[in-house]
């Protein structure tokens, strides 16, 4: 057991020596792996953040009813009564057109421009929370309301939330595809990095074999090197994503503020990060073992 441990200790020592003797190229290798990790991880992070945000959106179907701009107070009252008596309308809220204009002036900063308008271009409207939001009930409601000449337009607001959620799931698929591609790239990258290491240490390998080194003795430092590179490279990748997120977070908070939301991008959970680190290490090991197998056979004496 101690003998076995000693062999592994020696292999790890050799690995660290390899990393330390060429610090610059080691750093470049880590960056290459880091970038290969950062792209799919970053995409995944964005998508899952978006998913989290989409999850917070109201799921109840909502609709807006816009009246004609010249609708009178009597029209408003009539529509309000109509909505109150409708079986499918759970709740309705009247938004007065003068109030709507004031809100717009405040939030858009276009106060001067709006003040220049002779009359209020905004209509009275109602925000509805519906019991059912499927196309049929909505169409029924729409025909009922449009029978009244004061109603201009009915819009299902929750539609965009549905669109967002399908965009998010599309993004999810894309992230998985990108992760698969970069996983394959990572495998090839490590295989190539290890191949170069083997070629630069060719002499040592030949001599070691001549004086009784087993194949596993030769293989071990390269596998360790790949695993260590994989782990350090993933950490670099996670670091890159974290830096990217902190750069994005300012603009994102501003954007979310415009929608009256507070929202922060955050790194995936620690367990997810640990899992991706393990995956990268495993892929690196697989690439290294492919490369070692192939090239040690070529060096066979």
């Amino acid at each position, binding site marked *: 057991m101690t*003998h*076995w441990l*000693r*062999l592994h200790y*020696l292999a790890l020592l050799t690995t660290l020596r390899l990393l330390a*003797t060429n610090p610059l190229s080691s750093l470049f290798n880590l960056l290459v792996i880091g970038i290969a990790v950062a792209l799919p991880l970053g995409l995944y992070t964005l998508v899952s953040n978006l998913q989290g945000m989409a999850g917070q959106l109201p799921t109840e179907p909502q609709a807006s009813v816009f009246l004609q701009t010249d609708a009178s107070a009597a029209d408003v009252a009539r529509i309000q009564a109509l909505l109150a008596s409708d079986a499918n309308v759970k709740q309705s809220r009247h938004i007065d057109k003068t109030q709507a204009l004031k809100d717009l002036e405040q939030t858009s900063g276009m106060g001067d421009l709006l003040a220049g308008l002779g009359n209020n271009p905004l209509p009275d409207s109602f925000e509805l929370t519906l019991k059912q939001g499927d196309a049929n009930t909505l169409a029924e409601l729409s025909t009922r309301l449009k029978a009244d000449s004061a109603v201009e337009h009915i819009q299902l607001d929750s539609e965009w939330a549905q669109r967002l959620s399908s965009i998010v799931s599309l993004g999810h698929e894309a992230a998985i595809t990108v992760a698969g591609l970069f996983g394959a790239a990572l495998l090839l990258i490590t295989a190539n990095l290890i191949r170069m290491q083997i070629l630069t240490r060719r*002499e*040592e390998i*030949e*001599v*070691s*074999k*001549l*004086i*009784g*080194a*087993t*194949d596993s*003795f030769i293989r071990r430092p390269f596998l360790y090197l790949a695993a260590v590179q994989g782990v350090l490279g993933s950490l670099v990748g996670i670091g890159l994503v974290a830096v990217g997120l902190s750069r994005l977070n300012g603009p994102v908070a501003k954007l979310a503020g415009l929608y009256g939301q507070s929202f922060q991008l955050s790194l995936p959970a620690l367990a997810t990060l640990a899992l991706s680190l393990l995956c990268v290490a495993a892929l690196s090991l697989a690439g290294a073992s492919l490369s070692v197998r192939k090239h040690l056979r070529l060096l*066979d*004496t």
Partner: protein
Amino acid sequence: MIQFNQVSKRYTGGFEALKNLSFQIETGELVFLAGHSGAGKSTLLRLVAGIDRPTAGSVVVNGQNLASIRSGALPFLRRHIGLIFQDHKILFDRTVFDNVMLPLDIVGYDRREAGRRARAALDKVGLLGREKMSPISLSGGEQQRLCIARAVVHRPSVLLADEPTGNLDRAYALDIMELFKSFHQVGVTIVISAHDESLMADYGRRILRLNKGQFTQ
């Protein structure tokens, strides 16, 4: 210890390096291998070390037939053999000391004990004071002695030296021969190849003469 039975070796391309050789070397024997370059000396040593396999016949070393040995078992056979190369095969990316440590690291020897042994081997070849140096600063003769220290540090029972004095002047060559003599005195089986027979004559040992892959008398 080493036994060849009707051994032939033909390289790909058709060159026949050894033709139907049979001989035996007893445990503890010191044997010289003489012949011009291209006579097959190196090929013979490569067969003993299991670097090449014979095309025909059997090569038995330490009771194992190398013609049919599993490649997984070869490293363990080689740990009983010390190899000295004409071109030294020293690794220049590490110190003199670490070069000598390599065979012990391969076996997974305890580091402290290994260090003690490595220094003893360096002391034996007169390089103890240079252990922390890079081998590049050593002269040709010193590099050859470093190669010998690496070959004996794990105390092999067989020592194979391919032209160990090939590139050295006579005084250095005699030094090296004295080293081999001292290993022989402690019971190591030694095969030394050389194209210069004048060095061998002084020792009164058996000389195997090779010419075009066959023994001559």
